[in-house]
């Protein structure tokens, strides 16, 4: 099958060329905005505003990053997001394994009822206001708990983990462990989670990304500025264009320069806020196919 390009028929050559062309167009259109943003963030602010930046940084500086560094709100947000993401993801994984393992066992009495209870919540939800009222009534408004607890588990990820457990942990293993006197708690802790590295990596990525990127719950549940996650701070700056100019260095009189610096600050912020996940994601990438496949299997 693997004939070299030279030996291919004329139609296959055409196909190979056209295919490469289509893929290149798709690839470049996804890649170009990313390259442009990163380049702009390292460029001179005037160059960005006047449109001199096309592909590579023009008159490279770190001005944008320096401006972000001086912007204290961003760092408060960064710290909060880090706390929410680490705690939230830990809670997520714990809860997901707790739910997924029993549901993966064939001998769980009443399994179908439990599965229905889980699945139904994916088809019907109480809606925005009842959720808000609940969080308000249990007194979690304006606290870290409002960010962590209401999203403690995602049913979809439970299903993914459950399917993986069913597929990859043979019944014989459980029987053997039981013969040796291992109870279910020990089995989950000592065997199941140690055999499920790939899927745990994938759902950790999903949860961590969801926690890090979350803004809506924070927006409706949090009031105090010092609890704001990074995304809320970003929302003010990037979306509402609400930049606290007193945090920007430079000559206050020069409005044009300040405007340019504001633009540069945004590009640098986009890069900084996205870097943590982008550092994490390549390690999990090789498992993504597995995770997506497992998720698509019917229970």
């Amino acid at each position, binding site marked *: 099958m693997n004939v070299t390009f030279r030996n291919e028929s004329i139609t296959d050559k055409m196909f190979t060329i056209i295919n490469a062309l289509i893929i290149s167009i*798709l690839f470049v259109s996804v890649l170009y905005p*990313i390259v442009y943003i990163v380049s702009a963030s390292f460029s001179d602010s005037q160059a960005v505003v006047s449109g001199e930046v096309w592909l590579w940084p023009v008159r490279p500086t770190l001005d944008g990053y320096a401006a972000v560094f001086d912007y204290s709100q961003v760092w408060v947000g960064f710290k909060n997001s880090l706390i929410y993401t680490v705690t939230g993801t830990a809670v997520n994984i714990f809860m997901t394994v707790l739910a997924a393992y029993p549901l993966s*066992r064939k*001998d769980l009495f009443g399994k179908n009822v439990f599965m229905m209870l889980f699945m139904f919540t994916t088809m019907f939800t109480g809606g*925005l206001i009842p959720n808000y009222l609940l969080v308000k009534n249990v007194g979690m408004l304006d606290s870290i708990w409002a960010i962590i607890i209401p999203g403690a588990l995602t049913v979809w990820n439970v299903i993914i983990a459950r399917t993986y457990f069913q597929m990859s942990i043979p019944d014989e293993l459980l029987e053997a462990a039981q013969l040796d006197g291992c109870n279910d708690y020990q089995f989950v802790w000592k065997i199941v989670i140690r055999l499920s590295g790939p899927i745990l990596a994938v759902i950790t990525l999903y949860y961590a990304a969801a926690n890090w990127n979350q803004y809506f719950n924070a927006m409706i549940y949090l009031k105090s500025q010092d609890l704001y996650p990074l995304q809320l701070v970003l929302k003010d700056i990037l979306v509402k264009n609400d930049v606290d100019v007193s945090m920007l260095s430079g000559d206050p009189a020069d409005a044009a320069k300040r405007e340019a610096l504001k633009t540069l600050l945004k590009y640098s912020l986009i890069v900084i806020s996205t870097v943590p*996940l982008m550092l994490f994601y390549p390690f999990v990438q090789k498992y993504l196919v597995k995770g997506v496949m497992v998720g698509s299997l019917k229970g």
Partner: protein
Amino acid sequence: MSTSNINPGINNKIGVTHPPAKRSPTIKKLINSKQLYVLLALPLLYLIIFKYVPMYGAQIAFKNFVVTKGIWGSDWVGLKNFERFIHSYDFWRILKNTLFLSFYNLVASFPFPIMLALGLNYLRNRFFKKVIQMVTYAPHFISIVVIVGIIKELLDPRIGIVNKIIGFFGFEPINFMGEMSMFSSIYVWSDVWQHVGFNCIIFIAALAAIDPSLHEAAVVDGASKFRRMWHIDLPGIMPMAIILLILNTGHILDLGFEKVLLLQNPINVKTSEIIDTYVYKVGLTAQVANYSYSTAIGIFKSVINLVLLLSINKLAQKTRQTSLW
């Protein structure tokens, strides 16, 4: 068949209590699953409190909810809130916006992941394949806030790169965000950009599962690559594509509400107001927040979604062998 039922003796050794000799099979099964129930307890508690209690709370859609009277104590008003929504001035516009944006998104985002997966499958260079996958998956993990920030910067009428490019070819700059007819395209194409790579993963996996002997036989018969792609690969991934289409159609009214909310501005609100943003505004940001009315609109949407999902699945079951259940 379960292990514990085959051999109850083993279970006695590990079970916490030894069940007395004669008990009904149900009780026995309950006891056998005891530790599993303990594991399941916390997630179930979560589910009940944070998923089912709000469903109970959703009854305020049929009531005139007054905070001091509470959910249970408020007076029933029947379907008044639903009628109010259906007869409201905004109803048709919002419904039209929601459906239009959904269908546009569904149709536009369908072919590209398949194209990318098929193309990658025929790419010779493994290194490029890896790089392309790595880069195209990445935007999926960028937050909505940042995506909207990127959109706003790149589409800026004065300094955005897109208008610079348009200007380079000698056209007038377009104020994308200030043009209400542009809203749906901005939403949809940025979504395609963000998710094309990630959505193609599933097709890459489906392609890998196609029996290689089919290709070998086709090569022997002298089929060109294009023919093989058209007659082997495409039919091979179609069941997957259809399942995904069914799933997405079932959520046709669940747009990326958070993204719409961020992209919204006073100029494009006429085309960008969808059911979910309306629910949010009526319920939480309006001067006089109307909890009951907002909840009713949300339920209206949920019910339509559910009906759509069930009927489309039925349809798929009839016409093809593919279905969700």
